[in-house]
């Protein structure tokens, strides 16, 4: 790969592409379980603070990404309240590491993920869950064997959206973990860097094409997959 009619990615460019894929994949995977939990709470829970939780989840969608990045820096930076504790007890460091880029991407994609899953949960016919209960399934088993399979298309759609968001995330990432080649320089920040240097146009074009290819591949894959799942669980 990389050699396509005089179209060759440099090692630095490859690193940025690989890092972006890794950051987006890790961000999506790790935010899935909490997103399902929060979506369940929002879709079915009745508790004081429901509106506040809903607002918090959606905040990254509305705030300028720089603000989100700055808040992450305060919270998860080396001297941040949470960041310091995590570094001390778990050895988990976010600031100026690729893990920080993944955290920023996860936070930015979280509202999209939760929204998609919440819609899927609200569309589940709860009478099927009642039926499962009369057959002997406790709440946990009902969720695992009935609810989860039925909301799978929604989870998938949300995951694709979050992955796409993570691939394209720029503002919060560069604010939180800067733009360090090989560590935190993702596709977006690499393109940004190339645009700042004279003669970087070719690099910008190459990475742009790579971005388009990855995005299209993800969208087509999600379309095919969700069509297959939908056919499998077609209701009535």
């Amino acid at each position, binding site marked *: 790969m990389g050699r396509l009619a005089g179209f060759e990615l440099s090692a630095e460019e490859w690193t940025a592409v690989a890092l972006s894929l890794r950051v987006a994949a890790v961000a999506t995977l790790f935010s899935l379980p909490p997103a399902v939990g929060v979506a369940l709470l929002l879709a079915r829970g009745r508790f004081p603070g429901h509106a506040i939780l809903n607002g918090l989840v959606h905040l990254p969608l509305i705030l300028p990404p720089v603000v989100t990045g700055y808040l992450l820096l305060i919270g998860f930076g080396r001297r941040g309240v949470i960041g310091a504790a995590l570094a001390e007890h778990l050895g988990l460091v976010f600031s100026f590491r690729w893990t920080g880029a993944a955290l920023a991407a996860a936070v930015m994609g979280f509202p999209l993920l939760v929204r998609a899953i919440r819609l899927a949960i609200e569309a589940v*016919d709860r*009478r099927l869950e009642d*039926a*499962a*209960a*009369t*057959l002997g399934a406790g709440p946990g088993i009902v969720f695992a064997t*009935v609810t989860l399979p039925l909301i799978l298309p929604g989870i998938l759609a949300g995951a694709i959206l979050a992955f796409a968001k993570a691939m394209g995330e720029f503002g919060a990432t560069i604010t939180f973990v800067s733009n360090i080649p090989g560590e935190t320089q993702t596709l977006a920040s690499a393109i940004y860097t190339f645009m700042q240097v004279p003669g970087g146009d070719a690099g910008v074009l190459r990475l742009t094409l790579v971005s388009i290819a990855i995005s299209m591949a993800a969208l087509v894959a999600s379309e095919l997959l969700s069509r297959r799942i939908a056919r499998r*669980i*077609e209701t009535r």
Partner: protein
Amino acid sequence: MTIEIAVRHAVPGFTLDVDLRLGNGLNALFGPSGSGKTTLVNVIAGLRRPGAGRIVVDGTVLHDSAAGLDLPRHRRRIGYVFQEARLFPHLDVRRNLLYGRWLRGQGGGRAEIDAVVEMLGIGSLLARRPSGLSGGEKQRVAIGRALLSAPRLLLMDEPLTALDEARKAEIMPYLERLRDESRVPILYVSHSVAEVGRLAGEMVALSGGRVVAHGPTAEVMAGLDILPGGVTAEAGVMLDAEVVGTEPEWQLTLLDTAAGRLAVPSGDLPAAGRVRLRIRARDVMLALDPPVGVSALNSLPGVVEAVVATGDSAVLLRLRCNTAVVFARVTRRSAANLDLVPGRRVHAVLKSVALDRAMISL
């Protein structure tokens, strides 16, 4: 095996107040819509918590408000066949059937699974998805799924209501087999006199949240006029009958009933044995003299006992023919012309073709 249900449940504008003791076999819970039938079965299944009450099935207390005891729905072992089959769309028929069984950790028991599959005639559907099944097939699978979860009691909430007449006729024989072959007691909810009459040994009539009648189906049906609204159109009686002969030339079968001898179309009726016959009030014509020159084959002498209901244009009369009660629905005008008052001697005239297979259960 006994089932005790004492429940008081009030919601704005409606109070369910029921105290029942049911035995084995198929018990029908009958009543017009809004009478509280579904609420009651939901309370039994644990899908709805009653305001107060005590429910005991086969010695196991499912709910006791006074003792603060409420067994969660998934531990009750109450099979539930819903009006809409509610099959799991993401599982094939086999996995749907085995769902409850798998949860109870009874994966084995090949013989029992085969028996249920055979009884319901769903062997050819096992690999299919619910979305590809007809309404009747879905409902049979739903019954199998509930049965295979080894329930203490099987609740069936109007399982035929969502089906058209052809599908109902298709599934009815399977319900009769279920009643006769399964040892699980069944509580069958319905607002159809035809279904209850054909299936139930005992019935409970519910109206406005209260039990208005409870007993052997034939007896309760004979007194159905106690039920308000909408019932008279389907009013009728169930009679036990014995096949006493056939007229092969005409394809007719002769039945002896407590009301007298009746000729009915033979169809697939056995040449001997006992059947149950339903006579709908609207199929009964009345004559003052023994009818002559009439095409109807059956004429039963009797006496008008009571006018049980009067509608805009029709009245429902209760007759006694020999030892049996028969209902007749005639126009108000005929009742006036013929002076059909209590004590009047009449002949109940019945067309044989009206007593077709749908009216007879084996």
